[in-house]
């Protein structure tokens, strides 16, 4: 996986693989840091890899692993003195995705969500020591992608469903029969609350999330559907914070399609 991690002081490009985690300068010219995973001599039945990347708390970069552990790295404002600050061990299944709060979290809602192969979601509050605020148990269906906005967790699952959870209480607030196949990517546009979902069924959907601060009602509407003919969509991202444009990648596709 590859992700830009925006911190107040710097932007790092983080890559995860079967070997571990690599962090590069924003222009890709220097490798700032490299963390190797414990890879066994001979291949074992259980795969080893790092997966799930997010910047949190203005100071940390969190990366998930196939062991279920989440590595928290403390990033200095300059230089390569990155340290492993903490290892969060609440998940028992391989981590699939991690997301940080992109809007304004209500009190007690936390600013980080981690997801795993079993569908379990953990909500955290970042800091010198991360605190587990809540856990939403999975039902066995993989949560492949997750986003967090204004205390709403948007989770995409392997059975094509999107669920919206309230981060503070851990309650389910919406269930969307969104896709007919495995959801590969979710992205959120923080200025408008637009949610992008992309799956193997060739479809990309744009949704609009909203949260009423007074009534605490959470609403979601379907805005647009796009079919990328004969393509299993593997990646989708908004290109701007308002969600006016988005880009899509797919299996066997050497192009990036922009909408």
């Amino acid at each position, binding site marked *: 996986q590859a992700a830009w991690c925006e911190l107040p002081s710097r932007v790092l490009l983080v890559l995860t693989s079967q070997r571990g985690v690599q962090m590069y300068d924003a222009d890709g010219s220097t490798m700032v840091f490299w963390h190797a995973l414990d890879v066994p001599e001979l291949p074992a039945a259980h*795969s080893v890899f790092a997966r799930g990347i997010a910047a949190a708390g203005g100071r940390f970069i969190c990366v998930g692993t196939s062991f279920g552990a989440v590595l928290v790295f403390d990033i200095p404002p300059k230089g390569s003195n990155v340290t492993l600050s903490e290892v969060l061990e609440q998940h028992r299944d391989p981590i699939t995705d991690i997301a940080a709060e992109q809007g304004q979290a209500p009190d007690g809602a936390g600013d980080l969500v981690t997801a795993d192969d079993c569908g379990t979601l953990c909500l955290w509050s970042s800091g010198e020591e991360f605190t587990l605020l809540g856990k939403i148990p999975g039902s066995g269906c993989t949560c492949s992608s997750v986003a967090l906005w204004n205390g709403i967790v948007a989770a995409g699952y392997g059975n094509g469903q999107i669920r919206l959870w309230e981060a503070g209480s851990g309650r389910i607030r919406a269930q969307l029969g969104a896709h007919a196949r495995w959801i590969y990517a979710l992205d959120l546009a923080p200025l408008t609350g637009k949610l992008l979902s992309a799956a193997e069924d060739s479809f990309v959907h744009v949704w609009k999330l909203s949260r009423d601060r007074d009534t605490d009602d959470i609403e979601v509407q379907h805005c647009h559907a796009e079919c990328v003919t004969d393509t299993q969509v593997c990646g989708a991202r908004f290109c701007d914070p308002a969600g006016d444009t988005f880009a899509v990648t797919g299996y066997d596709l050497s192009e990036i399609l922009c909408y």
Partner: protein
Amino acid sequence: MSARTLPLLFLNLGGEMLYILDQRLRAQSIPGEKARKDEWTDVDRKRVMNDIISTMFNRKFMEELFKPQDLYSKKALRTVYDRLAHASIMRLNQASMDKLYDLMTMAFKYQVLLCPRPRDILLVTYNHLDAIKDFISDSPGILNQVDETFRRLIETYNPLSDGEFQLIRQTLLIFFQDMHIRVSIFLKDKVQNSNGRFVLPISGPVPWGTEVPGLIRIFNHKGVEVKRAEFTTAGNYVTPQREGSFELYGDRVLKLGTNMYSVTRPVETHMSGSSKNLASQAKENIAPNPLAKEELNFLARLLGGLDIQKPAGGESGFRLNLFTTDEEEEHAAQTRPEELSYKVINIEATQEPARRAELSRILGELDVAEPRPGSAGKGEDLLALMDGL
């Protein structure tokens, strides 16, 4: 990437290979009494199928296969199938072998791509195994071997999670990435476009466990459903009727992995060599010793496990042609685009002393049937084979 992918890759590709060989052998076979010495009969066809299947499901081979390991390179895997296809009295020219491998790989790529759930790859595998059991239904010994492997698959794979299957699926898709060989039967059935890409339908039954897209349900903070809304898309999905069976016997429901060839439908491929990606692929692995030591030992074991029947009196023996005529086969060999050539590795067992020792040791431990001296034609060779049983 998943280290549990190789058995699935090997068995499914093997299954496709058997479908194709069976179809070609049937198409080219002559009724027993009328056949000349060098023509195929039903007895020959069954013999070939039995030999290949029993080699494929050889116990030692299977044990090696099921060990957690990375996927072989395309070249190394191709060499394994080359050996497998020659496990019997049948011979294939390079052009026919190339075509066979193209068909096998594109067929399985299609099946992996279209699997509704990642776990359905198992149903595809079971479909192949069900058909293989049918091919050797009157050979209880080989049937036992296949059933043993079947049970091993069930034991190893049935308990895996969706996430692990998705990883296996991704490993397979990476292996097949950028392969766009056009297959006649796919083009005719409109499952493949003229640019080589597969058609992904946006209609039909949704995977088991998925709901038909279109419904939005909103809950209040007490968990009570307060609103429903619908949205529409171009897709036209329906609910599936039932789930396929993952047991040793059962209705798999899924059609992917069943035999799509029949005697009347010829199997052709078109070479589309214009892709840029293929050109870059061909540049890799030109190193003189592309096989890693481990892979060579694995193949050596496979070689060692074979009863090497050399067709007496020269190489042609009982040749199977995957094309309609010999001229077509010749033409295909000459016009195959450079970037699509498999550059099959010829293992020079005599090159390195260490390797030679290893191979000799393995061969020495096994009985290798000596080719009967003086046998000149197919009839005598068959007799010789039967005498040796």
